[in-house]
């Protein structure tokens, strides 16, 4: 039974002309451009493949279920998922990796649960986790940011990028390397200062890896723009970032070899900013009340830090978000019931 909604997704700011999802996509533009600048055309190709796969698979499933295709495609929700996925996956990843990630996110995590409105797990993170667990080797190959590239080596131009992605050439040697979080995870014998000095990704002695910092700042700006436009509330992102910072500070032991990294490093590297502003604020997988959002963000921050510091995976935003999605109904349930209990006890007094 097709449901015609009266568009509850309109942004209050712009008089309802632009929907919330369009605002979010707009806010992703700075981050998208900076990532393409830093990492080459691989990012753009990823996004292209992901968006195509997402749109095609969504159309097929909607047609199978005899739902109106245009309405659902036009609300751009699958495009948003695909763009986030394309930004999260490594640039110059094989095309089939992006296709598999996009299919699992749209088909399994979105369409099986009835397309829009009531999702259980964030689709982009499901897609990312599926390919991370299935293809760990391909997922560990990241492109070196342009700021760190050795003289004379350039990122492949658009044609070369296409041929790398589609498996026709293999010339990725000079341009791929470890991410900052990877470097931390793998160098267990080095002091933090030594990591900063020896690993090339940390050259120019910056906080969280050249190139990566700028990317995360771009996500931060996008997030602040959306906050200011009242697309989502500040509770969940702030709780998540505060928790990560506090835990990183608590476990900071002056830079020894077993340390997990400074708070700023954690905030500005990997997928932290993207996760904080674009993933956990997805309304259908999150909790309802603002207090619950604080708990939700804090829980996700806790999981992200624990997995980054002591788990097997260098960047844990996907797993942290999935675990938070599992716990979100529980947080809702507990917050509903504690208000009920406190209201009952105050009535009885």
């Amino acid at each position, binding site marked *: 039974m097709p*449901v015609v909604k009266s568009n509850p997704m309109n942004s209050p700011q712009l008089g309802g002309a632009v929907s919330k999802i369009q605002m979010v996509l707009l806010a992703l533009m700075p981050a998208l451009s900076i990532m393409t600048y830093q990492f080459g055309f691989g990012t753009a190709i990823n996004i292209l493949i992901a968006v195509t796969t997402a749109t095609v698979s969504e159309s097929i499933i909607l047609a199978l*279920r005899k739902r109106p295709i245009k309405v659902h495609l036009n609300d751009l929700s699958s495009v948003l998922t695909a763009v986030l996925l394309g930004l999260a996956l490594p640039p110059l990843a094989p095309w089939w990796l992006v296709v598999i990630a996009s299919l699992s996110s749209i088909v*399994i*995590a979105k*369409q*099986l*649960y*009835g*397309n829009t*409105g*009531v*999702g*259980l*797990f964030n689709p982009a993170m*499901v897609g990312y*986790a*599926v390919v991370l*667990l299935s293809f760990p080797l391909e997922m560990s190959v990241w492109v070196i940011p342009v700021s760190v590239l050795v003289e004379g080596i350039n990122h492949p131009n658009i044609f070369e990028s296409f041929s790398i992605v589609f498996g026709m050439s293999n010339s990725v040697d000079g341009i791929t390397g470890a991410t900052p979080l990877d470097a931390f995870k793998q160098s267990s014998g080095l002091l933090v200062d030594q990591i900063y000095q020896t690993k090339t990704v940390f050259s120019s002695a910056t906080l969280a890896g050249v190139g990566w910092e700028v990317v995360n700042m771009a996500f931060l700006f996008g997030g602040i723009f959306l906050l200011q436009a009242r697309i989502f509330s500040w509770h969940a992102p702030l709780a998540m970032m505060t928790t990560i910072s506090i835990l990183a500070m608590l476990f900071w032991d002056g830079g020894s070899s077993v340390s997990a990294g400074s708070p700023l490093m954690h905030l500005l590297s990997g997928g932290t900013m993207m996760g904080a502003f674009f993933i956990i604020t997805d309304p259908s997988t999150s909790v309802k009340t603002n207090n619950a959002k604080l708990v939700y963000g804090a829980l996700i921050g806790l*999981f992200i830090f*624990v*997995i980054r510091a*002591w*788990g*097997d*995976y260098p960047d*844990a935003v*996907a*797993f*942290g978000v*999935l*675990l938070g*999605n*599992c*716990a979100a*109904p*529980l947080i*809702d*349930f507990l917050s509903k019931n504690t208000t009920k209990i406190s209201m009952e006890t105050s009535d009885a007094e």
Partner: protein
Amino acid sequence: MQDILVILISSILINNLVLTEFFGLSSLFGSPQKIEPVIGLSLATILLITLATIANFAVDRLILQPFDLEYLRTLAFVVTIGAVIPAAKKIGRVTSPVIDNSLTLFMPLIFSNTAVLGISLIIINKNISFIESMFAGISIGIGFSLILIMFTLLRERAALADVPRPFQGAAIGLVTAGLMSLGFMGLIGI
């Protein structure tokens, strides 16, 4: 004390038997889909698992090992768990009507929960002390209950969704459990 804490946290969260080693799945999927009975069910399960672990530990140490009857282990444990049920019911009657009701209503579900038998067999293989095995039992119970409660609440959310007809009911439950374990895979290695 530190060992106990490690056992508790690792069994509840990290090496959660339900999601990593597929224990307790029949009870997970057969459980009622509303949250109120599930809370009673999980409390009753914790009680039964703890008692069963203690009883099985005793049976193994006092009867099976001295007489070299290890091959009878599985059978003996099943019988012991069945024998523990009246004891659990008595305790339930004394402590809380919720547990008592749940034990009566959901007895097949709790008794045949493979986690109950599974944890007993696992702790025998690990050769740990009595106190540690008791805590292993409690933590498995808590771990199972946590997963069960989260799963039920997720299912309640999924019931509101526009799930395709072939997938309604059990199938979407399986997919949900699979996605839950996807998340928990991130915790391995801690």
